[in-house]
């Protein structure tokens, strides 16, 4: 460090780069320290990278995170178990249904009601998670493409992601931050035209996801930018704790949906996608193929949802289930008129019950659990502790992006500056989840 402190410092603000370059050339000073981010269009979010460059070769890189830290875990300790979903969904806002699902599965495990969740609720969860996986991969591939200057691919991805978000809106009332998966089930059932919308979505995705494939998979520029970039083999992944597409790009078919199934994933027919190149290109291929596998799962969901029409989507235990049936009115989401009529005009007990569950919430027996799901980027875990009260005593989210960010130095040091962008995009960290 003492060596560094004796170096000349150049402060670059705006357009004085040419001065710095000429000044640096004059002094024969070969190493340049560049601060990349936190507000830079190619850092995949508000992430700061402190790089030491020898020419265009990276000799040292250190990620700086925390710019999007919002204290979600602490805040949840002051809200009821149900309100916790509204916080969880705001962590990784691109893959929000995974956050909701892992939290609710953990709460249900603490309550000991995992086996009581109705079949239709499980199918609805799988459906929304697979749509979320597709839209998450759209963001991962699309934003990555934009960072590599392939704007057309980003256009395709944004266009198709919009279709997924519109479906989310039709089903949950909101495009993002849905808080739709709740402890015990889901907040609402499908709307009347839900099955038709799902069918249309499946068709549209089947038609249009191949477009990304056509743009990218054989594209010589894309291949030369990503092949060999961000190399991390199986031993490296084990050491750095990498999961998801990063791990599967080394050829290990590790997918929690298959290995430690939840929400009934063991009953669905799909393949675990792998690649063997251990690089950014391999991770792209894994994501692309996973989108096709998600469509396969969605088709099975459509069939099962047709078969289970009219069945409950919330656990039968009235001490846990949300008392109101939510309905989507013209102004967004609210209690159904039937329910309001019942509690306001017909039953004093129903009103008291509604009041108690909504304001106080339900108590969860003391204990701690760890639950993990396969999110778009890898293992998303939730460590929950209850002290027997109506609020989480401690809620910790293990975000795959947080774990992946620390492997950036191992992947990038010794590589060229442009490889950093491709590597970062291939990890697909979403800073909302990384910083929480």
């Amino acid at each position: 460090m003492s060596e560094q402190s004796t170096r000349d410092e150049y402060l670059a603000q705006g357009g004085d780069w040419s001065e710095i370059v000429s000044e640096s050339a004059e002094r024969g000073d070969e190493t340049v320290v560049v601060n990349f981010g936190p507000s830079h269009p190619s850092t995949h979010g508000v992430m700061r990278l402190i790089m030491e460059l020898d020419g265009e070769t990276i000799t040292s890189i250190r990620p700086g995170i925390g710019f999007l830290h919002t204290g979600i875990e602490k805040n949840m300790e002051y809200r009821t178990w149900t309100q916790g979903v509204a916080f969880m969904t705001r962590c990784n806002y691109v893959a929000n249904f995974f956050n909701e699902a892992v939290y609710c599965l953990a709460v249900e495990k603490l309550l000991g009601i995992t086996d009581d969740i109705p079949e239709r609720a499980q199918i609805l969860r799988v459906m929304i998670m697979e749509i979320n996986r597709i839209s998450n991969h759209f963001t991962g591939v699309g934003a990555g493409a934009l960072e590599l200057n392939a704007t057309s691919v980003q256009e395709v991805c944004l266009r198709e992601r919009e279709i997924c978000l519109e479906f989310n809106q039709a089903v949950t009332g909101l495009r993002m931050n849905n808080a739709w998966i709740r402890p015990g089930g889901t907040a609402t059932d499908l709307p009347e035209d839900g099955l038709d919308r799902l069918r249309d979505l499946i068709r549209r995705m089947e038609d249009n996801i191949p477009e990304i494939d056509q743009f990218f998979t054989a594209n010589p520029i894309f291949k030369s930018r990503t092949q060999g970039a961000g190399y991390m083999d199986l031993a490296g992944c084990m050491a750095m704790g990498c999961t998801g597409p990063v791990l599967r790009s080394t050829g290990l078919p590790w997918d929690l949906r298959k290995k430690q199934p939840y929400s009934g994933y063991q009953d669905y027919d799909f393949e675990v996608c792998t690649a063997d190149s251990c690089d950014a290109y391999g991770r792209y291929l894994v994501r692309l193929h996973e989108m096709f596998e998600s469509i396969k799962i969605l088709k099975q969901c459509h069939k099962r949802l047709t078969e289970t029409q009219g069945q409950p989507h919330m656990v039968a235990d009235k001490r846990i289930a949300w008392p109101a049936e939510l309905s989507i009115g013209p102004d967004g989401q609210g209690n159904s008129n039937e329910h309001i009529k019942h509690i306001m005009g017909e039953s004093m007990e129903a009103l008291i019950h509604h009041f108690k569950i909504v304001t106080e919430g339900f108590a969860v027996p003391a204990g701690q659990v760890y639950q993990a799901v396969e999110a778009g980027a890898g293992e998303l875990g939730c460590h929950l502790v209850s002290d027997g009260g109506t609020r989480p005593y401690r809620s910790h989210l293990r975000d795959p992006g947080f774990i992946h960010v620390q492997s950036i130095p191992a992947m990038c040091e010794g590589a060229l500056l442009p490889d950093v962008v491709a590597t970062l995009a291939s990890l697909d960290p979403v800073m909302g989840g990384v910083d929480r």
Partner: protein
Amino acid sequence: MSGQTPVSGGEGLERVSDPNPVMEVRTGMWGGASGSSDTSGYNGLIRTVEMPGDSSRPYGGWFDAVADRMAELVPGFSAGLTLVHRGEITFFVRPEKLLELVAVLRDDEQLRFECCAALTCVHYPQMTGQEMHVVYNLLSYTHNRRIRLEVALADPQDHHPHLPSVVTVYPHADYQEREAWDMFGVIFDGHPALTRILMPDDWVGHPQRKDYPLGGIPVEYKGHVTPPPDERRSYNS
């Protein structure tokens, strides 16, 4: 490394007869967030919250094989308590044995817990002598298993309990230990660069400790003022 008390009982004691550690003793039911008093002044309701779980043998399934192997390779690792709850097993570990234990857990063929999936802390200010619990959720890819290690530390005067870092065994614990330091003030001895990670470098305090206030300001809307969440009237249950 001083002032650490093993959780409940100790070596050589019969586990079955040990009561589970008490997390909290609560009085009252409904009142302000400022105290535990009931609004009515009754305060007669007293509840003891214990850490749940069955600590008697057999633990069931592969738990016994793993527990035996751990005890065989690192004798005396246990702090005297093993809890099985909701299908998960938690080993309470003596802090001085932690590093030796995780190395064995990673490398032994019958154990092979290659990944420290989630490392985090839980602060129990009411558990005198063992206020800070550091929790390791380990994952084995080889055997497709999960276990949890828990180390209970006393919260010293300066609120910085010490524990050996596991970064040499699990390199991916690096950021996780930094987060635990940042949020709880636990010092992981031997960590290559234990600096703040989520909070600004010059931040004072460790926000996820229970004695650190949530913060927030009253919000006024159409004449009504809503106090910040930790100052609202709430249930104590």
